[in-house]
């Protein structure tokens, strides 16, 4: 089903466990002629899917903070919720992620969901950034990708694997992004997609669709990850 433009009067849910931040974001959206509600808890303890089906029903878009656990346990991160909202197969719900954690360890917990997050807005830039982010999200859900979000198939060399810490990750070279600089890639999606375990991953060549024209490594996302086939034997002998 197609994604509708967010016209004035569209209903937008703002989700942030910080009540003041939630209301501030909703206020910004109201100033832009949207009907915005703010919410700061998940009192019913809903799962992501249930939350999208129940709480988000009736809304035309979602704006969600990444960290949702300051006072009350949500059981999921904003990045997961936003990604699943945008990638909902029956009716994608345009969703934008808010964060005040770019460049911190939280970046890792966002990165594994980036494939489904067309736009991330830094909280300090919310006032000017939120409406353009919603507009872009709708465009991407309609297939109109920005150059920095357009993805294409690239080989990926796995250099090292790290399985400790909040987010398991691999240090990789995404050949289509930069042939010499290594970047952090979330490991779990690669393990799930390839069936390999972490120990088997080191030294492997993978392929994935990656938005290789992204300026910052933190903005890279990975789709359709597979194990790359070996180079043909005659490439080494001829």
């Amino acid at each position, binding site marked *: 089903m197609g994604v509708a433009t967010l016209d004035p009067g569209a209903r937008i849910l703002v989700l942030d466990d910080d009540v003041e931040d939630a209301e501030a974001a909703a206020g910004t959206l109201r100033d832009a002629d949207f009907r915005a509600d703010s919410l700061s808890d998940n009192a019913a303890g809903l799962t992501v899917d249930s939350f999208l089906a129940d709480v988000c029903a009736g809304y035309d878009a979602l704006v969600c903070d990444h960290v949702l656990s300051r006072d009350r346990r949500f059981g999921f991160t904003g990045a997961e919720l936003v990604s699943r909202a945008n990638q909902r197969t029956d009716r994608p719900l345009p969703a934008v992620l808010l964060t005040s954690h770019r460049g911190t360890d939280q970046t890792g917990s966002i990165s594994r969901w980036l494939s489904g997050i067309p736009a991330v807005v830094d909280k300090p830039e919310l006032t000017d950034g939120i409406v353009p982010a919603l507009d872009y999200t709708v465009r991407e859900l309609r297939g109109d990708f920005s150059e920095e979000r357009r993805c294409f198939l690239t080989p990926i060399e796995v250099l090292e694997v790290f399985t400790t810490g909040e987010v398991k990750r691999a240090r990789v070279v995404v050949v289509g992004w930069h*042939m010499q600089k290594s970047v952090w890639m979330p490991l779990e999606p690669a393990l799930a997609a390839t069936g390999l375990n972490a120990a088997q991953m080191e030294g492997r060549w993978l392929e994935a669709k990656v938005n290789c*024209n992204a300026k910052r490594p933190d903005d890279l996302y990975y789709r359709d990850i597979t194990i790359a086939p070996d180079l043909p034997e005659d490439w080494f002998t001829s």
Partner: protein
Amino acid sequence: MRILDVGHGNSAVIWDGTTCSVVDVAPGDLVKSELQRLGCVRIEHLVVSHSDSDHAGGAGNVIVDDARTIGTVWYNADGDKNTAVWERLHRAIYTRKRMGGLDGHQAIHTEIGQELHNGRAWLEVVHPSIVMAGTGPTKRHRTLGRLTANTVSVVVKVHLDKVPAVLLAADIDAVALRALEEVESDLSAPVLVFPHHGGRPGHADPARFAERMTQLVAPKVVVFSILSGGRTNNPHPDVVAAVRKAAPDAHIACTQVSRHCHSLAGPLPDDHLAAGEAAGRSKGRCCVGSLTVTKTDAGLEFEPLLPEHALFVSQHVNAPMCRTPVLPMPRVGDAPGC
């Protein structure tokens, strides 16, 4: 065609309509941006002169980006170097071949048996010979001696509308130049993109190499593709002096301002630069920036206009090697090129 300011490295884009050819892809966004600016939908020939990162490091992105199709990727094996960059280049080619949109890849030398055309442009392969390309870099060749990746790097003479225009000399050294002389290769071209960014030509004397190179090409314009500052600190003053000696009337243009010419840190004006991107523009370090060479009925035309570049140099560069008398002596910070 456009000789891009990529900082330390080389890249050139030749286009006719929406079809392009690219010779070398330095790391960074410059080639990609230029292809987008030109609306290029097909790269007919992508030539990777040799395995060094400053010539090949950006090729992965160009090869796998499905925004445009590619005819042939031309490059030679480098079994001696076997760098990670080189393996990644192979991988990019293989991925793109399987994905579609890349016709093929081939070794490149003077006897490939076909001509590399891009509309009205012709990319004449001047070097390496089939023997050198087939041998590749090696410490000990029976007759040729030591061949480095630079020695066997691919030299292309670009003809625009059947007229020789630009010699892209990659990183060739004195061994390569001697080989070219022995087979009496015609290197003459109005524009020379000087080898190895004006750095040292292997173990040979830089002044003698530069003088001979310049004599053989007889250029009207000599371009040094360099990074302002940087470890290599190019071009070498002896090289510039020798170029001036061999071609006193040639217009010398560095893509970015050399530290030998201008030691002041402040940004330089950029209103003389051509439209489009140049790596040194944002930091105010461009000298000629990216140089566009166009064949018209009147001959070759340049953008930026060469007189405007000359005016910029005389007004803003405090000790330009291309203008002031040069005493060929070592300077602080000299380092061998890479």
